[in-house]
């Protein structure tokens, strides 16, 4: 398997706080990786750096041999639009738009026509078993349904990497499990790699392997075992 995304020696500070000190990891195509660690360990910052949302203070992130921090904002935006997908704990859906419009949003941002985008969006919503609430808005459906819509939106562009930051953090165990199952099944079907940030071992157990972050440092567990 080829290395899709490689991070080396990342460091990132927010003011006086060091979120990342020395973090390295890689993601291969189609692989499901869990990033684990206690809260405040820097795992979300690591994910943001990997996805090109944050620029690390030191170190490098390369996606398909291209250095992310060297790209201009427009190129990184295009990357987020076309090659990456995101599922966060909450606050990612636009409350003013219907679920269907939300799922179609990244396609339309990419320049697809409205009708076409919404047709494609509906297919993804059906796959995630939320096709029946397409015309509802966030706030009119349960949190679990909302997260499944978010997964549908993240997958609608058929990304190469899906970034998920505590996607089930606000859900109860049963709904969380359902969202995770659908997320990982769909990811396996499309061949997308998944980077999943979680502090729950049970959630991490869905992944193929895990990377542990502690105090801004990564520990590649595979090497120890």
């Amino acid at each position: 398997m080829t290395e899709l995304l490689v991070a080396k020696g990342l460091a990132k500070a927010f003011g006086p706080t060091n979120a990342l000190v020395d973090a390295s990891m890689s993601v291969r195509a189609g692989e499901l990786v869990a990033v684990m660690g206690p809260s405040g360990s820097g795992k979300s910052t690591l994910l943001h750096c990997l996805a090109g949302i944050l620029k690390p203070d030191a170190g490098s992130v390369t996606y398909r041999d291209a250095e992310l921090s060297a790209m201009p904002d427009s190129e990184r935006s295009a990357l987020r639009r076309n090659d990456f997908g995101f599922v966060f704990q909450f606050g990612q859906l636009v409350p003013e738009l219907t679920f269907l419009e939300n799922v179609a949003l990244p396609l339309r941002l990419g320049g697809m026509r409205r009708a076409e985008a919404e047709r494609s969006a509906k297919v993804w919503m059906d796959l995630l078993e939320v096709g029946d609430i397409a015309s509802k808005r966030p706030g009119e459906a349960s949190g679990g349904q909302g997260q499944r819509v978010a997964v549908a939106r993240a997958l609608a562009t058929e990304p190469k990497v899906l970034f998920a930051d505590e996607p089930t953090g606000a859900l109860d165990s049963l709904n969380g499990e359902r969202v995770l199952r659908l997320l990982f099944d769909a990811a396996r079907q499309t061949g997308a790699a998944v980077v999943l940030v979680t502090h729950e071992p049970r959630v991490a157990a869905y992944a193929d392997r895990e990377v542990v972050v502690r105090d801004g440092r990564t520990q590649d567990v595979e090497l120890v075992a």
Partner: protein
Amino acid sequence: MTDALRRWFGDLSLGVRLAAAGGRGSAVRLAWITIGIGLGVAALLTAASAGSVLDSHEQRTRARIIGAAPDADRPVPGVSPLYSSAVFTEFAGRRFGGEMLFADGATPPKVPGVEVLPKPGEIVLSPALRDLLASPEGTLLLPRFPQRVTGILGDEGLSGPWELHFYVGVERAELPGTSPAYSVGVPPERLYFDPLLSSLVVIASVVLLIPVVVFVAGTARLSASARDRRLAALRLIGADAGQVRRIVAGESLAGALVGLVAGVVFFVVGRDLVDSVSLFGMSIYGKDIRPSPALALLVFLVVPVIAVGTALVALRRTLIEPLGVSRGARRAPRRLWWRLLPILAGVALLAGQHRGMASQPQTALVVIGVVLVLVGLPMVLPWLLERCVRRSRGGPLSWQLAMRRMGAHGGASWRIVGGFAALLAGGIAVQALLLTSDSIHRDESWTPTADRDLAWTTTADSESARRLAERLRTMPGVRRAVSYDVVHAQQPPHLNGPVELIVAPCPALRELTPIQNCAEGDVFSFPEPNGEIADLPPGTEFVLSTAPEGRLSWRQPERVRPIARPAFHAPWSGAGLLITPAAVGQGVPQLQHLVAVRLGEDDPLALEAIRNEIGLTRPLSFSARATPVSDSERTYTAIRRLVTVGSVAALAVAAGGLLVVAFEHVRHRRRQFAVLSATGVPYSTLAWSVLWQNAVPVVLGTGAALACGLGLATLVLNTTPTPQRYDWEAIGLTGAAAVLAVLLATVMTLPQLRRAMRSEGLRTE
């Protein structure tokens, strides 16, 4: 290329979709934007119609002038001649007029709005005059209109729906010296625009644009946190910075477009209203309010551009990142010098145009100067507020809370207050300009010194003049009344001032001035006001008529006795001769028969009775009293009042913006208020803190606006050679409106505050 264009369009339409998309917050926001921009657009369209209104007014009044066209007296086959003379009368401080008509034949030229010309003893009235005569206020006027009403004037013969106008039929003999007319109306001419008036229109338009800016800025603030989250979400899923800006542009464009539509609706509805309701005595036909197409197009282009521009500028300081919105780190204290630049540049421009320094003030430069000052005011105001907030130490808890909150997040509401102040300043400046350019008040500025109670009228012959004088003498309010004739004569060429020839029998001459011995055939001479006696040697010839049938003249006799100047004479008339009828001899063709009246105490009722006694067709003229405003001139006053009302309305709209911010503020800080309340801070303290927070910027802004507006008016009026006047009543009104707006905004947020303080404020979302 087309693909890029399509994507641009896609981004914009996404913004439009977001603006229109659900949620109570966005509905409220869209409603505010619609009303705010709508009112602004309606006002701008009205301003764009100023030309058409004045033009129509001019056209309508020109179209009914009888016999003034260059070839009006050339006989037209099939048209019988029409004799006419304009006549004016006054009632209750209102001057209005009409025409005395005599149609000599069955086919007179068509007078606009009149179906059948009135015969002698008949009259045609305008609808407003008919209504006035039928109303209780009109009873005093009724005796002046004894004629039989045979028709009502149509729209095409009136300058406006509320104009008082009439056509009265008279005998040919009552129209001496008039020539026959075969056509009615004067060909239209290009309207002359007073340069002051045209600069006024431009400044007013700029001032009217301010509420639009204020509103868009204010509503951009409404539910800003929701918008920030939304934009961050869009960034996360891959919208680049340009796309986000286009989406924001689309959002504000949606509001602007809806506002434009609303503005057109407001404008059309308001225009129809003008016909049915007399606003401030304004007499304008709704159909005459037609925006100039070029200006209307400009409005339709400029308003969306301003809306989008303002929204993008408001976004300038916020950096939208996928993880949320960061507002530039702690900002440096505001600097004064660059904020002062526009005001200084504006003042310099205006001062440069000061009369005396510039030979001819240039309107464009004056307008630019005014705009610079108005734009500069909202820039300086935040600095001023920041200073005040920082200086503030101590004070009660509510004051402290308000000051700290303002120090922490002033920006947005200060922008609104800045716009508010600019609006106020512009309104005051426009007021002063209007007042000064008002020609009526210019007349009034020439204050008469004496003889305010001297009036006269004319009659058809000396006998009726004598009888009228006799009747008037017995009326209350009349001190003295005399009748005499004036001979119109060519002045001898060697005289430098005019000499008046007054003809009256001895008793009447004695009424004019004390004469001891008077006999028929006597001639007397009175000096100029400064006592100089005219150089009139015996035998001086006065040419009375140069008619083709024979030259007629009168020679001054040998014996002319000096006498005192008649007390009746206006100070501005020159020297003259008093002549007994026998001294004139027979065959004097043109005598003017006058009745001079000296009035007693100022008594409006008596004055109306005197006018009624004189009759409709004979006006009572005053030597030294400002003529009351005629109907067409009243329109000008009405426009001024409309500007007052307009600026108050614009202030109300801006106050609405303030309310939006106040609401948003309480909503945003719901939790803090709840926590403060839970820790025992009383409701009144929090309510006061909200009041301070609303009031301090507005009071400062209003003060700055007053200073700025008055200064601006002074500077602008210095560029024109007119004395300056300020409409303190209107200025006071606008100031009071501002204070009222603050109180209202605060009071309206109090229920929300109370709700926030109850338990629900502590709940998280």
